[in-house]
């Protein structure tokens, strides 16, 4: 599904002394079934841009199109619906729910859809098998290593079989070996037809052959767009 951004702006604390323009008019077209990487230093606006594309926050102005649908301006209820069916998120700090098991964390996004328990369990076990997590199913997530938590996060992002995967600084908490493994998984997902959007300032990510396109941001503005 094609994603189009038209003159997107995002301002925090508008009208207050600490007003901050995180995104200052970005227009961008993200092709489907490709891996696109938003590159830039910390504070360049990568995470903010990703969160607006993924319907986690709204732009102050500008338009975001998902295929034929205009996302900016949609009520929260519809945004949730889109988020649930279209996007899968892999967060920088994984954002797994502490105290719950690997299996419970993975199944979490599917609960509001009310699937049959057996089929949900089956899907979760299939993903855990694929990402080598079967033996950890009943472990609580706080006992996992960084790489394992990362993979749980990927399984959770995939449980509703979304078209688009969004990964925010996915290698920030991983060592070199695990980062390479992660990029191999990303390549595999791209080949399976997913659209993947990654934000990172890690060369291991944006220089990876799995990435089709790199877009560079600085101070909330687009400075370079390279295929």
């Amino acid at each position, binding site marked *: 599904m094609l994603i189009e951004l038209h003159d997107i702006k995002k301002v925090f604390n508008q009208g207050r002394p600490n007003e901050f323009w995180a995104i200052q008019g970005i227009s961008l077209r993200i092709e489907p079934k490709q891996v696109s990487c938003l590159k830039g230093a910390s504070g360049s606006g990568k995470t*903010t841009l990703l*969160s607006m594309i*993924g319907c*986690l*926050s*709204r732009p102050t102005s500008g338009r975001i199109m998902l295929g034929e649908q205009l996302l900016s301006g949609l009520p*929260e*209820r519809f945004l*949730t619906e889109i*988020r*649930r*069916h279209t996007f899968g*998120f892999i*967060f920088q700090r994984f*954002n*797994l*729910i*502490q*105290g*719950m098991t690997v299996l*419970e964390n993975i199944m*979490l*996004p599917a*609960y*509001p*859809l*009310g*699937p*049959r*328990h057996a089929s949900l369990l089956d899907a979760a076990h299939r993903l855990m098998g694929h990402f080598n997590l079967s033996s950890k199913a009943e472990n609580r997530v706080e006992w996992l290593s960084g790489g394992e938590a990362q993979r749980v996060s990927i399984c*959770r992002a995939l449980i*509703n079989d979304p078209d688009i995967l969004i990964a925010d600084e996915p290698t920030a908490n991983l060592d070199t070996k695990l980062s390479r493994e992660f990029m191999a998984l990303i390549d595999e997902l791209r080949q399976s037809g997913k659209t993947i959007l990654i934000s990172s300032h890690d060369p291991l990510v944006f220089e990876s052959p799995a990435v089709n396109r790199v877009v560079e941001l600085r101070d909330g503005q687009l400075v370079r767009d390279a295929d």
Partner: protein
Amino acid sequence: MGFFRKQRYLIDFTLSSLSRRKGKNLGLLLVYALIVFMLASVMLFTHALRKEAGIILQDSPEIILQRMVAGRHALIPADYLDRIGRLRGVSEKQGRLWGYFYDPAVKANYTMMVAEQHELTTTQVIVGAGIARTRGIGIGDYITFRSYDSQAFSFQVVDILDANSELVSADLVLMSEQAYRRTFGVPEGYFTDLVLKVRNPREVRKVAEKLSLKLPDTRPILREEILRTYDSIFAWRQGIVFVLLAGAVLAFVIFAWDKASGLSAEEKREIGILKAVGWETSDVLRMKFWEGAIISLTAFIFGYLAAYAHVFYASASLFDPVLKGWAVLYPEFQPIPFIDGLQLATLFFFTVFPYTVATIIPIWRASITDPDAVMR
């Protein structure tokens, strides 16, 4: 089917969420249940006392007639019975002898009364269970009372009053008329008061009015007035206990409000995650509503059941000195188990409802914020 499965998933998640914060939730549950227990104990017990008083007074005379001299209750001459004459509606009238006796041995007042339904000799008495317990006496034992002119008279206890009526009979001593007159120096031809039975309850007030006109130096006391007095005494005592408990209730309200109105960073983050992975605001609200409802309902049920057991099986041992109010001879009695629906609903409304609502407000605030902002 999908709808029901979704509710099941939400409840499963709620239970897992509660068990993840075991310490905090158990602490809250305990304090909450304790508050419900205390309030429900007072409510159940005072209600039971009122009911008990009502049942006991059911068979008492409709009107008591006392003679007043200078605004004080005085002995009433027996010829007042003749002066009353034949009043329409009065089925029975008779003189009554009763009074109070201070026993310095146990520093308590006894209620001394002439036994109407028992044949007692001048050296026999029947005592209430409270006296028997306090003085450590049983049937066949002797008890001595010093009369108005300082003479000591010994009486043999021939019976102990039924424990079922202990609410009013704990401090009661029944004796013969002769023994009574000798102990208190009440001359023949006088009574403490007169009692009248009125067949039709609707005529009671009319009869009382006629009595006041016929015998202007007397005061008629109606049974319904006594009941009302009991009612207000117990209501007043209930109020006193509520005031005493107010500190604890206030502490709980602050604690619950703090818990309910402020979300920890961890809880906010969790809401952000749930929204980010596709939960709707209503899903989060429903889940948190279940969480609040489970805590408050469990606490309410445990607190109320504990209060029920405390009042009806342990005779409200924690509150009886305040609620029963007898000086020394606290009656020991088993109140008749009874639950008042309105009372139950009131307690429910003032405990479960505010807590559940207070829990929802901050959750609602967090869940209508963009997930990105909540997680940051």
